[in-house]
């Protein structure tokens, strides 16, 4: 059995851990002087050697991303922390910011120093004021303690950190849309290349990293490459803040090495809640990655094993659904989300999500047809790979994945409304009815 290994979450039960004092009492800011005594390039090399992969969903190697930033080019460099966590199912960055803002900040200072950035932005979605407060307060504490600002700890290194509040747009989690948004425009993705590493914020070299990725950095600098690589696999090294939600008895944050299985996480989370006690389907990391079934509970949660199983690790925040859930209903709701969040820039995504939801709605009401199944397949195929960013591809993901495992449910929805086959109330976490 893979053990739980709390690292980032190890001191979350300390009442004042989110303050500078609490964090420092538990080894906080010990990595910073170490890093500031190192050559920036050797920090990049160290992060590269750990094999740390981005925790925002795509899993791109972090050190490699940093190494793409041209050095000594005379241009300003920027680190932008993507704290726009909005992927359906993802709920690990907001808890990290609430419970451990100083680990994020220590990671920010070290990472900015490594890529030679002197101004860092933390772009936090606007709908989570308490997370924004915690990070902003941590920034002020760090400024007052001389951990951010001019000549940090006598190193000669200067850094400004700006906490930026978003205003409600899932698309801004896409890194180039985030940059447009941060430049004061509508959040719409850019054509790549050029990549942000050379032409990012204000067309200057920029690294965009996820909150959890950056929060890993202090432990890497403190404990080294070998320590880090004890966790996980060759291709997926390290630990992961898994957020397990849905029909489980103890939903929550579980930090474990990559490579743990869903069966093991389910055991820690107290097993399946409700229904007939089995997993009907689950999604390893956000609605943008294809669903899996009970047949995949022993597949290691690594980037490579998830890819082999036809899905992705994504954000590493599994959603579990029991036997009472209608796949048709779940997929319809996800597509309504993508329709709502499509930024409108690319026609296949903007129009495609609109048409898909219209057809799915027929199935939900028991009025789908056989040709409709083919139509949905065509619509998805015409979105995939035909839009600027991954939102389009993501929108084209839930239906084909659902058809792969649950075609019979779509067939049943050609004659019977979904609510008759799967009464909504059976899935609820409460038994009461609406108050009168």
């Amino acid at each position: 059995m893979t053990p739980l290994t709390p690292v980032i979450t190890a001191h979350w039960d300390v009442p004042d851990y989110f303050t500078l004092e609490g964090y420092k009492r538990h080894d906080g800011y010990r990595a910073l002087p170490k890093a500031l005594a190192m050559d920036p390039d050797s920090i990049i090399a160290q992060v590269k050697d750990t094999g740390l992969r981005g925790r925002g969903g795509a899993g791109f190697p972090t050190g490699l991303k940093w190494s793409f930033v041209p050095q000594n080019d005379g241009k300003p460099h920027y680190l932008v922390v993507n704290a726009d966590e909005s992927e359906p199912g993802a709920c690990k960055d907001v808890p990290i910011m609430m419970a451990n803002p100083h680990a994020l900040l220590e990671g920010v200072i070290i990472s900015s120093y490594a890529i030679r950035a002197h101004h860092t932005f933390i772009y936090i979605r606007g709908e989570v004021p308490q997370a924004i407060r915690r990070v902003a307060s941590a920034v002020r504490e760090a400024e007052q303690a001389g951990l951010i600002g001019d000549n940090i700890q006598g190193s000669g290194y200067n850094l400004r950190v700006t906490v930026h509040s978003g205003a409600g747009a899932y698309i801004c989690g896409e890194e180039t849309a985030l940059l447009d948004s941060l430049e004061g425009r509508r959040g719409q993705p850019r054509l790549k290349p050029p990549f942000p590493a050379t032409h990012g914020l204000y067309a200057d070299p920029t690294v965009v990293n996820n909150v959890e990725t950056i929060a890993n950095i202090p432990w890497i600098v403190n404990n080294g490459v070998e320590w880090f690589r004890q966790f996980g696999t060759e291709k997926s090294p390290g630990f992961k803040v898994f957020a397990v939600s849905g029909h489980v008895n103890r939903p929550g944050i579980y930090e474990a090495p990559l490579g743990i299985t869903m069966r093991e996480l389910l055991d820690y989370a107290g097993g399946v809640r409700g229904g007939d006690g089995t997993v009907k389907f689950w999604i390893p990391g956000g609605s943008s990655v294809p669903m899996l079934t009970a047949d995949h509970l022993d597949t290691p949660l690594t980037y490579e094993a998830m890819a082999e199983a036809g899905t992705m690790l994504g954000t590493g925040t599994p959603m579990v659904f029991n036997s009472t859930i209608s796949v048709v209903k779940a997929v319809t709701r996800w597509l309504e989300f993508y329709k709502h969040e499509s930024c409108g820039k690319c026609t296949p995504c903007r129009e495609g999500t609109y048409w898909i939801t219209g057809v799915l709605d027929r199935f939900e009401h028991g009025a789908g047809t056989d040709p409709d199944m083919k139509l949905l397949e065509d619509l998805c195929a015409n979105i995939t790979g035909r839009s600027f960013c991954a939102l389009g591809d993501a929108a084209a993901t839930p239906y084909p994945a659902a058809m792969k495992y649950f075609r019979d449910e779509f067939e049943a929805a050609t004659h019977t409304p979904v609510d008759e086959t799967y009464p909504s109330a059976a899935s609820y976490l409460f038994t009461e009815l609406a108050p009168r």
Partner: protein
Amino acid sequence: MNPLTEQTRASMAEIIHRYPHKRSAIMPILHLAQSVQDEITPEGIAMVAEVLDLTTAEVNAVATFYTMYKRSPVGKHHIGICTNTLCALLGGDAVYDAVSERLGAGHNQTDVDGTFWLERIECQAACTHAPVMTVDWEFMDCQTPASAVEVIDRLARGEMVVSTRGPAIRDFQATEHTLAFPDDGLAGEGGEADAIMLAGLTVANQRGMSAPPATAQGA
């Protein structure tokens, strides 16, 4: 509605200083305008355009793209109920229906006296705490139809309601001000991580599990 004042303009200038290029300040500045006027008004658009040297069309383009900016008065409290798949199917739909009935308002509508704005919100990054509700964007986790309606009733009576992971509820405009000036002295509210955020650490402690300590040959 409160007018925008010279004080508002001065606060906008203060926000601009956080950024190397002033256009970048548009989002917190719009939050500030909304914190004064309870919505984004033509007057607000004009002032933002003026302080950022943009056209009103450029500001409107941004203000209409992001769903947190509203084009009619929100009222005293913004009520969000997550009806994305996971929350919805685990009970969020029933929570929404109960609150909608209580308020006599639908999605993006206010109740009859304009006190509460109801919105079906998308994933709030709190799926472990489903079904999720927000009041003025503060977390009200793990709701049932009855508990959500009780929150509304208490707010309607002017009673204190405390976020499950944050401060006592103030009002929508106060939260909007926080989004423009986040260091508002309330960061400590809500205290340490809750039981759900501590679920894994609790199990790890019970079973005597921990991460391996740093090795001697560490960097």
